[in-house]
């Protein structure tokens, strides 16, 4: 087993807070040092907000867990100063193959968007992802950033108050009390925070069991995603093979409903199944095995007073489509700038309600997509299996049927249509960049557009005049002046203007479009900035 699981990355050390006469109050406390908690903390600390992460453990998660990171989360991680490191360490893939019974029915390519800095996807073990984020936190600490991870600090009780949250924290040296102006619960699908606050988590439970295995293989399989429906080595069920770094392969085998979990998990039984799949001559070692079932559900609201829920604690989806960690990172992206404005007194507390509205909308989209994939992969009735198999058979002969094959609709970023932070669209330009959209990347010489956006409000002008900056009620938007000539590939023009001769965009700190118009109209953009900060 790789050493990374065994080494404490944030070992317990005594905090002065434990010896304080009265409980110390921090602006933000985050529960859970998984991908979502770490990303939220980095984002806040990067903007100068003092942040404490509490985790009941002291090391990265065991087993590969989340392994597919999509472009939008990688762009977010770029803004947080560690995207390039993640891409370097990950495996890139762009080909997927679908098999039905003994034959390949078709093959697809993830289309790379020309001029975007990040790939469509990388595969990377969750523990490596977490390790890179902890490294980033260590660097920030060395530079004096106000961020702290407290290992083996387990929250035992939570008290909600009007303007803060009170926490009872258990440590190896006894318990202490801590206060937070805002609490962000990133403590996973079984969230103890949710349980302690007595909140529901409703949705659809799927009864199929899946065996998940990481194997270290010497074989030279290509870096592709292979998905099998009803293969000879797993009759009536599905299978997935996916490559991770360091010759580790992820294998998912559907096992069906009523199984003996303990028996299936025994290494000799797992090896028998894997040999049937990979062939007798394949040489491999088993690194990690787990059996899981899943549910598609979410909390009714992600904000409860001064407590916010993010990632799996707020919503859970099936694994098909890689919509778990990827959506959690978009939660982090949405929370941090809003909390910063509220804590700085530059936006009303109700701005945090827009976190709930926008990310619940995203969660519904993910739940819908992942539920449909699950229904296709694990048909619930005889007729739905007949229809599913008809699609697979047709897809081997006719291109029209291939879009109907659903082995997981891979995570794409959410556009916050209808958000109360958006201003009405006032530019005849492509839908891709309508208010609510995450800004698509574009090449700018040696650099990229997205590296110039984010963390603060930006007024992007493309062949349009505007002041260098403007301030509205304490919030400043700074101009980024570009011309279509800055990008000879015309990606900027194609995505942001279309046939319009010029455009002005108000872009949020999380790189989502708040408003757009053909020219800088001051009252309009002042109102848009007020609206985007929850003041209209």
């Amino acid at each position, binding site marked *: 087993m790789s050493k990374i699981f065994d080494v404490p990355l944030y070992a317990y050390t005594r905090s002065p807070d434990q010896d304080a006469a009265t409980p110390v109050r921090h602006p933000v406390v985050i529960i859970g040092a998984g991908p979502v908690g770490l990303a939220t903390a980095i984002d806040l600390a990067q903007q100068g907000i003092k942040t404490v992460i509490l985790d009941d453990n002291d090391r990265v998660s065991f087993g590969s867990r989340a392994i597919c990171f999509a472009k939008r989360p990688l762009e977010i991680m770029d803004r947080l100063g560690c995207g390039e490191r993640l891409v370097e360490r990950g495996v890139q893939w762009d080909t997927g193959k679908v098999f039905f019974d003994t034959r390949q029915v078709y093959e697809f390519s993830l289309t790379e968007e020309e001029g975007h800095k990040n790939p469509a996807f990388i595969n990377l073990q969750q523990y490596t992802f977490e390790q890179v984020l902890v490294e980033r936190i260590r660097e920030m600490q060395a530079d004096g950033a106000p961020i702290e991870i407290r290992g083996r600090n387990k929250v035992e009780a939570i008290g909600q108050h009007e303007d803060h949250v009170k926490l009872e924290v258990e440590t190896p040296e006894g318990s202490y009390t801590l206060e937070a102006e805002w609490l962000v619960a990133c403590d996973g699908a079984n969230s103890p925070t949710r349980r302690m606050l007595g909140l529901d988590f409703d949705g659809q439970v799927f009864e199929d069991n899946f065996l998940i295995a990481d194997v270290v293989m010497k074989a030279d399989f290509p870096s592709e995603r292979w998905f099998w429906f009803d293969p000879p080595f797993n009759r009536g069920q599905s299978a997935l093979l996916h490559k991770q770094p360091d010759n580790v392969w992820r294998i998912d085998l559907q096992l069906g409903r009523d199984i003996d979990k303990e028996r299936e998990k025994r290494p000799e039984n797992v090896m028998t199944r894997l040999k049937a799949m990979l062939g007798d001559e394949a040489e491999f070692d088993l690194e990690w095995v787990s059996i899981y079932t899943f549910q598609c559900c979410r909390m009714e609201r992600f904000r409860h007073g001064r407590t916010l829920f993010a990632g799996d604690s707020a919503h859970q989806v099936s694994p098909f489509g890689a919509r778990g960690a990827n959506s959690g990172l978009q939660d982090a992206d949405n929370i941090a700038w809003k909390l910063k404005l509220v804590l700085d007194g530059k936006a009303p507390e109700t701005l945090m309600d827009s976190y709930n509205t926008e990310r619940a909308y995203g969660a519904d989209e993910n739940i819908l997509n992942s539920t449909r994939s699950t229904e296709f992969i694990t048909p619930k009735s005889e007729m739905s299996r*007949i229809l599913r198999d*008809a699609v697979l058979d*047709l897809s081997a002969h006719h291109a029209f049927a291939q879009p109907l094959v659903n082995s997981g609709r891979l995570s794409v970023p959410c556009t916050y249509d209808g958000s109360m932070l958006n201003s009405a669209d006032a530019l005849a330009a492509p839908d891709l960049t309508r208010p609510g959209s995450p800004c698509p990347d574009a090449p700018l010489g040696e650099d990229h557009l997205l590296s110039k956006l984010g963390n603060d409000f930006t007024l992007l002008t493309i062949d349009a005049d505007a002041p260098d900056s403007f301030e509205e009620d304490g919030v400043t938007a700074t101009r980024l002046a570009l011309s279509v000539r800055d990008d000879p590939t015309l990606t900027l023009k194609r995505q942001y203007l279309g046939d319009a001769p010029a455009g002005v965009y108000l872009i949020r700190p999380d790189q989502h479009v708040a408003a757009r118009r053909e020219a800088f109209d001051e009252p309009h953009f002042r109102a848009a900035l007020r609206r985007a900060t929850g003041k209209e």
Partner: protein
Amino acid sequence: MSDNLILSPNLDHADGFFDALARAHDGLEKSSSDALNARLIFLLANHIGDNEVLDEALKAAQTSGHQR
């Protein structure tokens, strides 16, 4: 606006099509027949394409079954 689902006679050869459809199932096991029908539904649906027409067809099929 899309065209509505055609519910007036529109087949070039009504008897011939019925015959061909029934004959296509001759000698097939129930499971193969079901699969054939399913493939045919998807082929026809793709040819139609228009989601409103498909929705209307689905509703028309749901509401025109024999009432027992």
